[in-house]
């Protein structure tokens, strides 16, 4: 029973345009959400996070939006660059769970010239 869902396995976007990645969750106890980026043959690297008390967090080209009532978050990348081509994982945790992260299935982003 996947508690974090990324329903789009892949996304293709042109360089310079906006990439929007979506993530839905079912567990209302989640209070922290993270996005990780992963290149092939490497471990995931942390990208950006958001606490459940906020609805937006921005870091450079990356912005994460949280809609708690809809149990939905999204990651916006503006502008998209070729180096952004990677798999992006949405993750969530609750304070009561010893920091365990629940991950979505990932979205493969391809940025084309």
């Amino acid at each position: 029973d996947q508690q974090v869902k990324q329903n789009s396995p892949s996304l293709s976007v042109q360089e310079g345009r906006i990439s929007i990645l979506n993530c839905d969750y079912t567990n209302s106890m989640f209070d922290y959400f993270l996005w990780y980026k992963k290149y092939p043959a490497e471990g995931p690297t942390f990208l950006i996070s958001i606490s459940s008390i906020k609805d937006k967090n921005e870091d450079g080209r990356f912005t994460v939006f949280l809609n708690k009532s809809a149990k939905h978050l999204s990651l916006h990348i503006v502008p998209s660059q070729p180096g952004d081509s990677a798999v992006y994982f949405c993750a969530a945790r609750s304070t009561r769970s010893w920091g365990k992260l629940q991950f979505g299935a990932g979205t493969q982003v391809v940025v084309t010239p």
Partner: protein
Amino acid sequence: DVKVTQSSRYLVKRTGEKVFLECVQDMDHENMFWYRQDPGLGLRLIYFSYDVKMKEKGDIPEGYSVSREKKERFSLILESASTNQTSMYLCASSVIRVGTEEAFFGQGTRLTVV
């Protein structure tokens, strides 16, 4: 820089072998985790540990065990490797602190069981 190091990048083992995957972190983190990554399934938690000698089952612990004798080291053990354990294995560590919530991952071990 936080560093999480996994002992092998690639491993090939035979069915029925006992397999050890080692992970070391250098940031004095309390929490350590083992995940496996499979296409279409994302990262799934196998086991985690929140202190030395403490361990908790994750979502898919069957066929695995773990050992944490020292704070910096967390080992994943495949008791009798099977082909359905062919996967990418990822170790991670983290500390629970207000405002510092991310887990740091190792580079991964690609295990093939033949």
